């Protein structure tokens, strides 16, 4: 059953599709005169440092929050979960800009309260900002892993005399290294490809070089540099696939009921994160809104954002299913899955142009909603694949075996057993894609149908022109709609009782 899975052909086509923009980049880069520049080294160091610090920061914030949301019984538990995952909804350049405007000498905080604050700047500032906007990747993947772990090992450790914290450290975390790695991978790739944050906070990174080239019409140089960046991406993809989690029988997961004081303290310690990543940008925009007025925002932009994101989420998940299935079927499948990740590490603006070239090949569909959704699928496939794969990996293999023995073919077993039991991962993948599409900019600007304005494009428009007050309402709507999508996802988890974990005591 392990040799050649029927999902392979479809997965191959889809992986190839996800790879097409990268191939376009190679064609574009062929014009480029120079392959490597010594000056690139300093910038490369900055880029790698930013990537490492961002991934590290995201893990430092995301893992404790994952523990909190997975294991601790909080009042209005799901609400906190949605709130803590919400930073994914905000474009990181918005976060960077508002933090930059708020802190530091002459910043809004100083103007309003008179307190001088240190400024967010350079490597430190960029790492903090990027960590703040990518930690939800880690939090969500780790949380899913934690929920599939059997609590009895922690109980065993505690009865042997270990405190709760050290048993979490020694007994729980080592078993979910692959969940941590998967989240850190996404955070790292995001840090590699993001331009807005390092530009605003004045950190010289590889992407900045790419953007400079791009904006001065050196497209082939920009493409060449993007491909060089992909080498780093390939490396971290390789490293991440090395991290293996434990394969174990699922059991009832851990639940903790700390007292009121403890719970309040824990929630309080989350506050800085939420405050900096969500409340601050909204507050800053609010101040400017009050100062400047609302401009010509239309509600249809929110509608456009929402349904484009919804189509994209559904389409991406559908395309992701064969690839995820292939990834757990064998080595070749895993390779295809890794390859489909490459596009995610390409800086957005370059990817946008590559997608334009790809889109032009289907000239009838160019600048239609269908093609835009397809572009989103190509860009964000890894988000869905990773989520689905890590859920179906954890399924008890004897379930599929039992179905086969009862007469179901591989396809039927997948459809009736693997699929329904992977709903959690599917929904999580769809939610991630939804959030990312909500804030996507470069591809949307060029490939969307005419007069199709989204929240992200409008936000960019007013930001570029300097009318920051006008960014408040779309910014708020971005957070609200994305928060709703997250809420649906998390509440849907309970509705579908497919937990292989026993939640109620058994009757006899």
């Amino acid at each position: 059953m392990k040799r050649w899975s029927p999902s392979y052909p479809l997965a191959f086509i889809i992986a190839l599709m996800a790879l097409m923009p990268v191939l376009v980049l190679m064609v574009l880069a062929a014009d480029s005169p120079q392959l490597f520049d010594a000056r690139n080294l300093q910038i490369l160091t900055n880029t790698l440092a930013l990537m490492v610090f961002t991934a590290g920061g995201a893990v430092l914030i995301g893992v404790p929050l994952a523990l909190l949301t997975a294991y601790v019984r909080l009042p209005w538990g799901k609400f906190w979960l949605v709130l803590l995952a919400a930073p994914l909804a905000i474009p990181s350049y918005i976060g960077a800009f508002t933090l930059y405007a708020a802190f530091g000498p002459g910043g809004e905080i100083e103007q309003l309260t008179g307190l001088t604050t240190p400024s967010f700047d350079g490597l430190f500032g960029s790492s903090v900002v990027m960590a703040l906007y990518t930690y939800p990747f880690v939090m969500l993947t780790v949380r899913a892993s934690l929920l599939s772990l059997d609590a009895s090992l922690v109980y065993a450790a505690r009865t042997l005399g270990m405190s709760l914290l050290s048993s979490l450290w020694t007994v729980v975390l080592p078993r979910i290294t692959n969940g941590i790695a998967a989240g850190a991978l996404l955070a790292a790739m995001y840090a590699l490809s993001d331009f807005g944050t390092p530009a605003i906070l004045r950190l010289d990174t590889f992407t900045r070089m790419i953007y400079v080239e791009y904006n001065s019409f050196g497209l082939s140089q920009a493409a060449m540099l993007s491909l060089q960046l992909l080498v780093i991406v390939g490396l971290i993809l390789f490293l991440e696939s090395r991290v293996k989690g434990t394969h174990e029988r699922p059991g009832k997961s851990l639940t903790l009921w700390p007292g009121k004081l403890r719970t309040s303290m824990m929630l309080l310690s989350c506050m800085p994160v939420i405050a900096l990543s969500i409340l601050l940008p909204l507050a800053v925009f609010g101040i400017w809104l009050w100062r400047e007025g609302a401009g010509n925002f239309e509600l249809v932009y929110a509608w456009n954002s929402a349904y484009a994101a919804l189509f994209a989420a559904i389409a991406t998940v559908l395309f992701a299913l064969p690839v995820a299935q292939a990834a757990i079927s064998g080595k070749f499948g895993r390779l295809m899955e890794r390859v489909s990740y490459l596009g995610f590490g390409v800086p957005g603006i370059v990817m946008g142009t590559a997608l334009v070239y790809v889109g032009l090949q289907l000239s009838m569909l160019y600048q239609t909603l269908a093609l835009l959704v397809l572009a989103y699928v190509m860009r964000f496939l890894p988000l869905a694949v990773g989520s689905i794969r890590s859920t179906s990996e954890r399924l008890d293999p004897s379930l599929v075996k039992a179905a086969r023995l009862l007469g179901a073919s591989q396809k039927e077993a997948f459809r009736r057993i693997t699929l329904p039991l992977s709903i959690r991962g599917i929904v999580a993948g769809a939610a991630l894609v939804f959030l990312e599409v909500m804030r996507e900019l470069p591809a949307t600007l060029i490939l969307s149908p005419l007069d199709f304005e989204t929240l992200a494009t409008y936000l960019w428009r007013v930001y570029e022109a300097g009318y920051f007050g006008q960014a408040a309402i779309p910014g708020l709507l971005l957070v609200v709609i994305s928060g709703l999508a997250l809420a649906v996802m998390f509440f849907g988890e309970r509705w579908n009782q497919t937990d292989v974990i026993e939640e109620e005591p058994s009757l006899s």
Partner: protein
Amino acid sequence: MQRRTFIQSLAALAAAGALPLNISQVLADPADAVSVEELPKLEGELTLYLGRGEGGLYENVIKAIEERNPDLKLRIRRGPTASLTNAILAEAKAGVRRADLFWAVDSGAVGMVTAAGLAQTLPAELTGQLRDEFRFPDWAPVTGRIRTIPFNTERLTADKIPNDIMALPDTDYSVGWAPAYAAFQSFVTGMRILEGDKVTREWLKAMNRKAKKFAGELGVVMAVERGEVDIGLANHYYTLRLKAGKPDANVDLAFTNNDAGCLVNASGILALKEGELPANFIRYLLTKEVQSYLAEEACEIPLVNGVMPPEGLPRLKTINPPQIDLTRLADLRPTIDLMRDVGVL
């Protein structure tokens, strides 16, 4: 490959466009700006690619044009100028033409498209409305922007600032600049053209030691206002707009005289499809009403005769900006390489 044809056409343009002033003066007597009343009504469908649309202001112009022409269906695609340029070039390569018009905020983008031979020739009497130095066969500059030195009014006064850009490194003021910004790169290109590569290199090196980098020139002006730096290098309208929103802001404009430091650049529009409709649309942008609106509200410099420049800006004659063929400013590659070499970029 793009570059080679670009340089070829650059040479051609240089031969045809940068005529000595007296000859171009002879060619056409610049008339006063046309009024919208005199223009034919626009009917039909137009697709406009608008690069970085200066917020609501260009929008307001467009809205006004639409209101005046109810039979015109105008569809707009907005995006970063470079993205749109690349899209237009890619579309042309694939034989797909979507855009009728391309309105870009800097002339570099316009240059790329005209170099690829994609722009339609504009009627002579259309381009004839513009001031001499702003007349080109296949594109129309819309509004101008001038390089300035915004300074913090709490610390400095205008007379303390040298009026020779090359003397700036000798002062001990802290400087803010945005090397990644297209207009700044055009400014450096201008300096290269006027002073030569060697001198430009020295200037950049010296300035780099005392300059603080910002992502955009709005950031530069905001930093000057905050007091983070003493002076900055930016397009004029950022300061004027900031002051319009905050009249008591601690920033004001200083100018150099007749060098790259007071270079005048322009946003430009070109037609990608032939026909009267695109050209007629462009006429609207050169009318008295639109030009004065942009001067008053966007604080940009009108390029047609008979329209007052924005408040807070001295007359161009007193500043005496250098005479450079705008299309030459599109030759960015050597500028970028130079800036990179010095470590500015």
